[in-house]
């Protein structure tokens, strides 16, 4: 009762809203080794007209299975075992085949996670969208064609006439996602199910994209069920939150209430950081004035383009410093060169020029044998926890491998060290004799961290370690990294595109764009007063998990236009000039240098240095 009252208070106009979808006790099962595994087991919830409902849950909680089941479908060999899916007063699961087919796509549209493989690879996308439209509407050939072009234009595809002739493999992920949306919305469904529609998209595109979707729903008066793993998406776009855990809804609350006062232990876990710590985790302070542990100067890395004399400028004159016990965040869109910087620091890739000074020694100049001594001091944790562990080795062997290479410990000591490492990363020692198979991404990433810690490193490159984790595992990993830094005094380079996590973990931030650092400063400086137009765009596009400052309720600052230029033929002047809202003629001609500002912040934009660019309010700091 209490919850409903709150819902009414939050959105008075939904008071009399009709129920569009009502799910009761839905069960979906998959036969595994002769028995039924039920990823969706007793799912019940409602969606009302004009409502954006968020569905959040861990990986494997049954989100995508549930989404399909709402259409009466299950990925083979799965089966819907029971329950009701009532739409417009009819139980979809009891309808004859032909009638439910008519409802799919016409009344309920769906956008799925993997847009490119969901488009037929053998048909031009215009044709496919046309088929979807024809299936539900009476229309002549030219009308269908006109509708297709109209839909493609509506989802923001430039030059829809020629894009309609493209095949799925010729489209980028974002483009394919838009095509899929055009298909899903072509018959103006009353309910849109969006299953992680922005996974795999870059931050800047993701926000644009969700904005468009939100606007469309507001315009057409339909409802959305938005399935996500991102708290930011929930907070910024949803009216109500459903929490899916072990196949059923464990919490159903209006969005503000959910963030302010989550009821279920799972919800409390994923919201722990926001609720207990606000924006910052109280990182251990860094001693000022001491010599930095690691400093790169003018680091460059180029790659040759095959069959040409051209070079890709992956990293361009990057200078960074990281103190002892300090975390530097490196942020930017995919392709900005973040990962390459991290690898050059450890000489996993040989830098083309520049220096990497670690503890007074230039690593770049070291002969390979001497470099090996430093390997144990500088470690890396990769993005994909599955691929970075040998699936045929036991955890114990994985953890003792670095000890074999870098220490002369006895077998008993190595065993003891492995156990210590497990304790250090909060994993059960019993896992030591298991293999990586069957462990979740969160546990595997902890093992990766434990392996990196094995030889007491002083510096670890963390290359997007949280990006494939579920919300709960992500919270745990962030806490772990902070604790390890406090206890062991390690320095991190934290590479990420997730600004929320960066804000929790980092002392300083550097923003990269096309291989260059465009802005550096403390977290407070960059998050509250970003100076570079690119940092501003990145921050304004980021979805912070704060329902009191929703993106849909505020005026959205101008986004960057167009795509990242090719790193092969870089412009002569400012690299951002082609996309920058503040561009003037002089920008295109003058190469930009990273200039210091007051307070240690530095920025690569002459207009920002001259104070000509408004430091935007840092909406979420």
């Amino acid at each position, binding site marked *: 009762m209490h919850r409903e009252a709150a819902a009414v208070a939050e959105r008075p106009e939904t008071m009399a809203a009709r129920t569009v979808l009502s799910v009761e006790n839905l069960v979906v099962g998959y036969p595994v080794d002769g028995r039924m595994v039920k990823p969706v087991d007793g799912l019940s919830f409602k969606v009302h007209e004009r409502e954006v409902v968020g569905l959040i849950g861990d990986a494997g909680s049954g989100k995508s299975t549930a989404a*399909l089941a709402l*259409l009466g*479908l299950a*990925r*083979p060999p799965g089966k819907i075992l029971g329950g009701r899916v009532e739409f417009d007063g009819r139980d979809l699961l009891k309808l004859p*085949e032909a009638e439910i*087919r*008519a*409802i*799919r*796509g*016409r009344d309920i*549209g*769906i956008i*799925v996670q*993997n847009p490119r*493989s*969901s*488009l*037929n*690879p*053998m*048909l031009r996308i215009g044709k496919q969208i046309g*088929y*979807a439209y024809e*299936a*539900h509407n009476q229309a002549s050939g030219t009308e269908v064609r006109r509708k297709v072009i109209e839909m493609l234009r509506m989802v923001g595809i430039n030059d829809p006439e020629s894009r309609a002739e493209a*095949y799925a*493999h010729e489209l980028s992920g974002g483009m394919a996602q838009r095509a*899929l949306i055009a*298909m*899903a919305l072509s018959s103006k469904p009353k309910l849109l199910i969006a299953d992680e529609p922005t996974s795999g998209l870059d931050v800047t595109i993701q926000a644009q994209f969700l904005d468009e979707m939100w606007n469309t729903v507001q315009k057409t008066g339909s409802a959305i069920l938005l399935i996500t793993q991102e708290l930011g998406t929930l907070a910024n776009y949803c009216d109500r939150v459903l929490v899916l855990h072990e196949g059923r809804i464990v919490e159903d609350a209006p969005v503000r209430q959910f963030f302010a006062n989550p009821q279920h232990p799972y919800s409390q876990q994923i919201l722990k950081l926001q609720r207990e710590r606000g924006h910052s985790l109280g990182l251990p302070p860094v001693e000022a004035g001491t010599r930095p542990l690691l400093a790169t100067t003018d680091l460059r890395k180029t790659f040759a383009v095959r069959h040409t004399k051209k070079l890709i400028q992956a990293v361009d004159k990057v200078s960074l410093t990281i103190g002892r016990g300090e975390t530097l965040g490196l942020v930017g869109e995919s392709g900005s060169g973040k990962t390459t910087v991290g690898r050059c620091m450890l000489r996993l890739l040989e830098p083309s020029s520049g220096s990497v000074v670690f503890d007074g020694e230039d690593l770049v100049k070291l002969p390979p044998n001497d470099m090996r001594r430093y390997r144990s001091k500088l470690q890396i944790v990769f993005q994909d926890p599955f691929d970075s562990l040998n699936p045929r080795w036991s955890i114990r062997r994985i953890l003792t491998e670095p000890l074999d290479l870098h220490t002369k410990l006895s077998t008993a000591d190595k065993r003891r060290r492995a156990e210590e490492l497990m304790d250090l990363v909060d994993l059960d020692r019993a896992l030591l004799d298991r293999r990586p198979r069957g462990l979740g991404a969160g546990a595997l990433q902890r093992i990766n961290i434990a392996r990196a810690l094995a030889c007491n490193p002083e510096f670890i490159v963390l290359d997007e370690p949280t990006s494939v984790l579920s919300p709960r595992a992500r919270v745990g990993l962030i806490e772990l990294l902070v604790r390890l830094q406090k206890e062991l005094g390690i320095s991190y380079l934290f590479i990420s595109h997730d600004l929320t996590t960066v804000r929790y973990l980092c002392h300083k931030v550097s923003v990269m764009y096309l291989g260059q650092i465009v802005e550096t400063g403390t977290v407070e400086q960059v998050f509250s007063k970003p100076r570079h137009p690119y940092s501003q765009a990145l921050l304004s596009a980021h979805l912070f998990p704060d329902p009191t400052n929703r993106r849909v309720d505020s005026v959205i600052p101008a986004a960057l236009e167009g795509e990242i230029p090719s790193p092969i033929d870089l412009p002569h002047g400012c690299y951002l000039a082609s996309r920058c809202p503040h561009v003037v003629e002089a920008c295109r001609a003058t190469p930009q240098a990273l200039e210091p500002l007051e307070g240690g912040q530095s920025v690569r934009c002459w207009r920002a240095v001259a104070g000509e660019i408004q430091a935007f309010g840092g909406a979420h700091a």
Partner: protein
Amino acid sequence: MLFRYISKRFAVGLLQLIGLTIAVFFLIRLLPADPVSRLVGMNASPEAYAQAAKQLGVDRPLLAQLATYLGFQPEIAPGLLQGSLGVSWVTGTPVTAEIAAYLPVTLELVTLSFILALAVAVPIGMFGALNPGGKADKGVFVYSLFAGSQPEFWWGLLFVYLFFFTLGIAPAPLGRLSPMSSPPDVVTGFMTIDSLIAGQFDLFVEALHHLMLPVFTMAFILSGPIIKMVRQNMARALQSDFVLYANCAGLPKRRVAGYALRAAMAPSMTLIGILYGFMLSGAVLTESVFSLGGIGQYAINAVLNYDYPAIQAVVLVITAISLVVYLALDLIHAAIDPRIAF
């Protein structure tokens, strides 16, 4: 683009053919066989032997023989460059003419068998994939066990017994037409086409009637692997994301099945091409059972008689046809699946 690709494939094919020609030329001459004594008999006088050897040209050095065969010495005998495959050592007729007589028989048989097999097997495979575990699916399983486990000549004999001897609905397995009919003028060598060109519709029906059992036998054998392949590819396509999404978008069932079939047929093309090339020479068992006298039988006779020009010609011709068939199927594959780039 397409033209460039086709010309490139032809150029590569030509190189392959040249290489193969030379390789086969030397390989058969490595055989511990003496075609001359085979021709003149064991008891022939040395003079007769030498004369025969001279006549066949085998007394000359190998490279000289090769040059003649390739057509670099047209003053001695026309060779490949002149469009001649040489003269048969056994019959004395030009091999080109013999191939022209034998090859169409096999091509007709194999092509018709493939058309029949595809017409039957594709829908069955598709149906099996759409209704896995259904009655049709189980029936197909039993059938493919059966058809695949027995050799085709055995099936041929069985069908002859059943349809000719017992039921009497098929003609005797004695060639392409009944012995009483006179064949139409040879234009293409294909009995069915030639009879139509000659306007003799009764002969056309008769030719088809005689092809009925051999085609049925071959199609019976061929359908097994094709059904399996289509079913498997189709089942995989049905589990793909884009079929699932097509269902999500509420496309009609027929269209969804069409999506899956198209996705299933694209990779099947390669196997069909290989099967076709294989069957060109592998049809010999069926040809023998029905006394059809195709290229397979011709090849066997050539080998048994050490008829080198004939052996070379058969290898060359079958390879050339296979290359053309592969190319055609690759083009079809590319037309079905736009992801294939030339």
